């Protein structure tokens, strides 16, 4: 008699908590759906040829986001071009030469802190060392602040991917008389290539929506600018400025820009995921 009661009680409890966790999952998916639908609903009407052809307008007139898109692409490319080699080499040191060294222990620790440190702080850092010394906001400073975000991502993925390369490959190459640098360049980098490319793609995805550090490094620019020494428009800061403004047509452009960034980030993450799964199979 008591056993049946206990049994029912346990079954009831099980049902209750499992229902809760199903609800939790529905809750999470609901938000994803909610955000994506409102993005498409509000942003889709703003996407047109003009968006890519015209510069950001003053309030009250029409325009596009061409200068901001250009600026974002330029600064992200510079950041990736500068950050990838450093990240790749540092990751290589951690996984190959210094796998068990004391220095690597500290570098790993510091790198993981940088990986999740608030991006606004890296912006302050670049402001202090570049903007203050060069007497002004510039696209170069913006790219540098993004580079500080790229490096830890590339270091982490490079190390992880190199550690997955079986030691047998390294030993086989060493048995043929290849020096260490030749082994790394011809064997281990090649074996880990897909994974490292995935890491770079994830880094691009990470910086393409990064706003906080650009606020006080690249600032913003109403006009088309190719001068790396001058402030440069970029999508995230334009979105921030336009969304916080009281103007209806600026809001529309902000939504369109937000949709562009989201599509870019989702495309990058999906590509990275496909690369990863092709590597596994």
């Amino acid at each position, binding site marked *: 008699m008591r056993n049946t009661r206990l049994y029912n009680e346990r079954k009831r409890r099980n049902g209750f908590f499992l229902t809760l966790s199903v609800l939790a999952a529905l809750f999470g998916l609901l938000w994803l759906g909610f955000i994506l639908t409102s993005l498409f609903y509000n942003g889709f009407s703003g996407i047109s040829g003009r968006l890519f052809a015209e510069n950001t307008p003053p309030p009250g007139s029409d325009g596009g986001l061409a200068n901001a898109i250009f600026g974002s692409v330029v600064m992200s490319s510079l950041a990736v071009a500068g950050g990838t080699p450093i990240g790749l080499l540092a990751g290589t040191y951690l996984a190959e030469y210094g796998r068990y060294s004391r220095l690597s222990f500290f570098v790993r620790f510091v790198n993981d802190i940088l990986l999740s440190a608030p991006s606004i702080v890296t912006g302050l850092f670049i402001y202090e060392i570049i903007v203050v010394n060069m007497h002004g906001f510039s696209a170069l400073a913006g790219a540098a602040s993004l580079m500080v975000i790229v490096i830890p991502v590339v270091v982490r993925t490079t190390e992880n991917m190199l550690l997955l390369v079986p030691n047998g490959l390294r030993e086989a190459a060493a048995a043929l008389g290849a020096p260490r640098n030749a082994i790394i360049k011809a064997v281990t980098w090649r074996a880990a290539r897909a994974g490292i490319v995935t890491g770079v793609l994830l880094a691009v995805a990470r910086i393409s929506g990064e706003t906080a550090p650009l606020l006080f490094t690249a600032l913003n620019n109403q006009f088309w600018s190719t001068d790396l020494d001058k402030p440069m428009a970029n999508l995230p800061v334009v979105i921030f400025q336009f*969304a916080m403004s009281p103007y209806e047509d600026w809001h529309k452009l902000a939504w369109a820009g937000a949709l562009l960034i989201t599509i870019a980030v989702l495309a990058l993450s999906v590509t990275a995921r496909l690369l990863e799964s092709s590597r596994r199979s």
Partner: protein
Amino acid sequence: MAAIAESAYIEKKAAAVRRGGSDDLRFRSLTWLASIAVMAIFAGVIASLLIGAMPAIKAFGLSFVTNEVWNPVTEKFGALASIYGTLITSFLAMLLAVPVGIGIAIFLTEICPRPLRRPIGISIELLAGIPSIIFGIWGLFVFAPAFQQGLQPWLIDLFANVPLLQIFLAGPPYGIGIFTASIILTVMILPFISAVTRDVFETVPPTLKEAAYAMGCTTWEVMWRVVLPFARTGVVGGAMLALGRALGETMAVTFVIGNAHHIQSSLFAPGTTISATIANEFTEAVGDLYLSSLIEMGLILFVITFVVLASAQLMLGALERRAGGVSG
């Protein structure tokens, strides 16, 4: 003749080996330099923040963190309201996101039909990759107005006569404020927590779970008594990483917090966080002391997140060693 040719050949090979050795040394130094660069960035962040914050540290000393007044006109600066905002929004976000995140992980590992597991898992991970400015603009234009018109007045009425809660959930329904910022933060860190938790749950050896099922345990009992205790360190470490993100989160919060330098008892009141204050005021800050005070806030934020992230790493590191079988 043959001997000379042979010695020349050996000489050539030896030179190649020596060159190989020096190439290797060069490459090795290059990788070493790159990892020193990572350390240098970290040291540079701390040093530049310290130097930038020096005037404010000298001017205000400890009162900077205990003073709520933030007045650029009289150049009196205290960070208490911002620090409070940072801590309370992150705390509320964790309070909501940790249980829901663990629920999602349980759903994904135990309940979800197998064909749906990957798609649902991937969509939750994609949510984790959406930049924070998207959450910000969505919060400002979609969530805050909806919250203001629907849920918020209802909550205020509902708790108007409940002791304690009537203090925290009161005041005019602005839509934006501490509470709204916490909700947006929750949505942002939720996918992160559930992704980490699911990964940790998957490291639990199946035999442990099977043994518990064989004893007659229900699914919930297996999760609560076997899987969660086993995965405890990893779950806490993942939650700490998420906390680190929430503390430093800028854009998602800046849009919806209201930017008011006051500490008010009601969670519906507008407030500010460290990162929101810096983002809103930095480019408009006039005067060295103003700028320096903002940089000191950045330093405080960095120190707080450093402590949180470092402890997260220690926990996750311990887990990795255990998974590697080095220590029990």
